[in-house]
């Protein structure tokens, strides 16, 4: 084999090496993009789940106002709230409420006129979670006995896998 032919073979090998290096870099970039897209989709699904749990809480008939004197949207009946806590706490109802709220903490706190202690409505936690979101929703706390409306806040902390 003459010298010219040897140089051409080495040149071809060098071109092939560079080509495969570029192909490898492209593949790594592609897999990173796909991975980040999957993570972004997972985060969005988790956030949607957190929003839907917050909406379920807002429209939970166990606590929502239904009296003529109380507004019905974004309103919690404080009389119903006491009963709802004991109903949600019952072991035979735990599966039903788990279906609704999954792994979350739901607490209700009076903000005005007095800053009260948060009342825990539902709590189920897991150590095996990927994302944790907290959503605060202002609500009216209506007492149908006195027809008074207080300013309250529902805090919903959801854990998603």
């Amino acid at each position, binding site marked *: 084999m003459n010298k010219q032919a040897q140089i051409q073979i080495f040149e071809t090998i060098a071109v092939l090496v560079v080509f495969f290096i570029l192909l490898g870099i492209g593949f790594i970039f592609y897999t990173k993009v796909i991975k980040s897209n999957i993570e972004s989709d997972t985060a969005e699904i988790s956030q949607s789940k957190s929003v839907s749990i917050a909406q379920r809480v807002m429209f939970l008939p166990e606590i929502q106002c239904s009296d003529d004197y109380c507004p019905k949207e974004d309103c919690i009946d404080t009389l119903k709230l006491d009963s709802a806590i004991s109903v949600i706490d019952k072991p035979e109802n735990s599966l039903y409420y788990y279906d609704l709220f999954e792994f979350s903490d739901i607490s209700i706190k009076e903000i005005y006129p007095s800053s009260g202690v948060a009342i825990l409505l539902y709590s189920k936690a897991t150590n095996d979670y990927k994302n944790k979101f907290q959503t605060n929703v202002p609500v009216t706390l209506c007492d149908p006995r006195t*027809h*008074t409306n207080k300013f309250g806040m529902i805090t919903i902390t959801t854990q998603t896998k």
Partner: protein
Amino acid sequence: MKKAQTEILGLAIVVVLVIIATILVVKFGFSKPANARNDFTNSEEASNILNTFLRTSANECGQVTMTDLLQDCAHGNGIVCTNGEDSCSFVKSAATDILSRTLGAEKKQYNFLACSNFNLKEIKCYDAAPLVDEVGQSCPGQKKLKIFPIPLNPGIIYAKLEICS
């Protein structure tokens, strides 16, 4: 094919590959992450807070709501609360209290205003002395805004809440 022509063809292929790679980087590398929860909470927050505030009862003023107090304020302060405040100053102190405990606690900047001479197109109050003067600070940049009309006989009061983004 001559050697020079082959090299030009190779160069053209490399240029095409670089352009394709750049397009892919721009398309996938700089896409904005979606944030469904923040979109939901930001859009609902101003509306929920203002709505809840306006129907909150004032214990010291005979259990009337903040809406009633604003209407009284516009009519000329018939209600005097047990703490000595008139309806206008009671609404202002209640708004200051509630907003500092909610939005203030979340380190969010806000601005609350109640006004009877309000231009909805310009989002500007033309009252020389608004019913409830600015609670909080105006937003210099982007904001979420909610305006609630409160009927008056005659006229309308507008309650405005801005939450800075």
